[in-house]
């Protein structure tokens, strides 16, 4: 198993390098002068420009700049934003907010998505199954920000059950609605995945054998059907945690949450590439790390992985 994990970490290295390089390239190799953007319409004095260029290594070749940046990521010294504050500090303030939002959304998608999926998977073609199936499709069809506005309007403005925006009130009550909105599409996907896996596993030979042993339907469902459906679920849920943090861009904008997505959004409009690249790098790292955690979990769940064998279905 150690070998397997080591291999996965090794495979993740080119992904981290590749993604950060790609984003760095997109932000800094594109036309447009970051310093001009920094000062807007004003004309900065030449000495200041030179100092900034030195600070940001803008006179070095592109690839050297990239490695300075990479060094920064791993030493947590990301330099300063255009407004003078250290980027690490900005991210440090925003990250916990997004983590609360994404974490809460994550809990929602597991609780609602998996539970509905199990019930629907066992009782396929029942009224419950058909209803939830249609709801899930509708959920997938509505863009997150529309869902956000609709809930804001209905629950916040009309019914006044929940607060409409978050602002500086980062508590569970204020985060409830944004988290639900953020989780919306994922709930639908997790429901469909769980349902499909359950239905598929129910047909497996070993499930019939388990019943032939004399186990009750409930025992078979929990010990065999659900247990075996868990593995593809873990894969999806794991990668989704990172996707939630990325999706927070929209939700945080709708609900005025000062998280990492908001930080990125405002700095894109300011043209502060260093902040943008740093945020994306953090998100990619989160994705890669959660992928590695998923792989470890997977190895725990599927004994066939532990000896490095290829997994076949069943």
């Amino acid at each position, binding site marked *: 198993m150690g070998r397997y994990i080591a291999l996965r970490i090794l495979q993740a290295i080119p992904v981290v390098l*590749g993604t950060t390089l790609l*984003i760095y390239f997109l932000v800094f190799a594109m036309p447009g002068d970051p310093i001009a953007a920094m000062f807007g319409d004003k004309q900065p004095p030449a000495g200041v420009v030179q100092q900034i260029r030195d600070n940001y290594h803008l006179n070095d070749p592109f690839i050297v700049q990239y490695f300075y940046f990479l060094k920064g990521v791993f030493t947590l010294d990301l330099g300063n934003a255009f407004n003078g504050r250290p980027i690490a500090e900005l991210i440090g303030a925003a990250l916990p907010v997004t983590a609360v939002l994404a974490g809460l959304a994550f809990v929602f998608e597991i609780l609602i998505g998996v539970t509905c999926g199990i019930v629907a998977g066992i009782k396929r073609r029942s009224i419950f199954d058909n209803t939830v199936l249609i709801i899930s499709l509708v959920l997938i*069809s509505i*863009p997150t920000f529309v869902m956000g506005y*609709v809930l804001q*309007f209905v629950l916040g403005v009309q019914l006044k059950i929940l607060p409409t925006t978050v602002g500086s009130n980062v508590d569970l009550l204020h985060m409830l609605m944004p988290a639900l909105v953020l989780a919306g599409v994922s709930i639908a996907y997790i429901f469909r995945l769980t349902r499909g896996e359950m239905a598929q596993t129910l047909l497996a030979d070993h499930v019939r054998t388990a019943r032939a042993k004399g186990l009750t339907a409930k025992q078979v469902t929990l010990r065999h059907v659900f247990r075996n459906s868990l593995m593809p679920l873990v894969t999806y849920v794991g990668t989704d945690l990172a996707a939630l943090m990325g999706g927070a861009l929209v939700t945080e*904008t709708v609900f005025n949450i000062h998280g990492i997505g908001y930080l990125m959004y405002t700095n894109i409009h300011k043209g502060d590439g260093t902040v943008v690249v740093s945020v994306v790098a953090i*998100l990619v790292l989160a994705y890669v790390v959660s992928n590695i955690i998923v792989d470890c979990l997977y190895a725990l769940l599927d004994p066939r992985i532990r000896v490095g064998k290829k997994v076949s279905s069943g």
Partner: protein
Amino acid sequence: MASSEHFVAKVDDGFEVKVDAVDTTTPARSSWGDAWEYLRHRPLFYFSAGLLLLILVVVLFPGLFTGMDPKYCDISKAKLPTSGEHLLGTTLQGCDVYARVIYGAGPSVLIGVLTMLISTILGAVIGAIAGYVGGVLDAILSRVTDIFFAIPFILAAVVVLQMMTNVEGIVKIVFTLSAFGWTSSARMMRGAVLETKEQDFITASRALGLSKFQILVKHIVPNSFAPLIVLATTSLAGYIVAEATLSFLGLGLGSDTVSWGVDISNAQESLVTNPALLLFPSGALAITVLAFIFLGDVIREALDPKARQ
């Protein structure tokens, strides 16, 4: 019957053991024909296909549905409620909402279809090469796919769009979405090709003397394509949503364009006072997306008998 008894069933007149008799009475049907036969009996298929047909007509001939000019706005007629003249009322600038919803379909659907075509073809080619050739090339292509996959889709699009300030309009959005949208189809195509490659009929084709390229084009690609069709349909829906999301973030089409995304974005400001302005373009968008999602779902069941039960 007792245990030691020798029982023989009555043999009917004309009883004959027909070994592996061929039944040619039923009409011939390919596996695509089989899928079609399944679709034919699904109401959901007709519902979604009919809806998409209607949307297509709206996109191609918006003039059939409204005589109004969506760009003609009369500030004196701003914020009107629903009436005979303005079916869905007017916007803050006094434009007809109904006309804007009808004409707004074009850019959304066009962006969805173009992005779907480009990203699916790009992904299919990369995936097919990686799966078929294998070895070092597969390792490189797979890592490249991983890299593009690891960056959250919307974030990537936001970054690229922000940087591409000198390119305008639909082309910019299609390019951006395609650049990061191809990874799923590449992964799926690679998996399907790897699976098809192991089949006996591929080995049989090799033994017949078909070249590697002939095998890829004649046998592997056609047999690996089915799952991609489903992905293409649902991803099309995803691209329409993505375009709207980018417009919402102020990075999509210019505000002078008539599109659902732009209108939804503009409606944000008056959410509390005039929620209908948000509702109609979003509703139109959601219905279009739903039609594609439904279609993808029913096609998936048709192509994969296992999904039917």
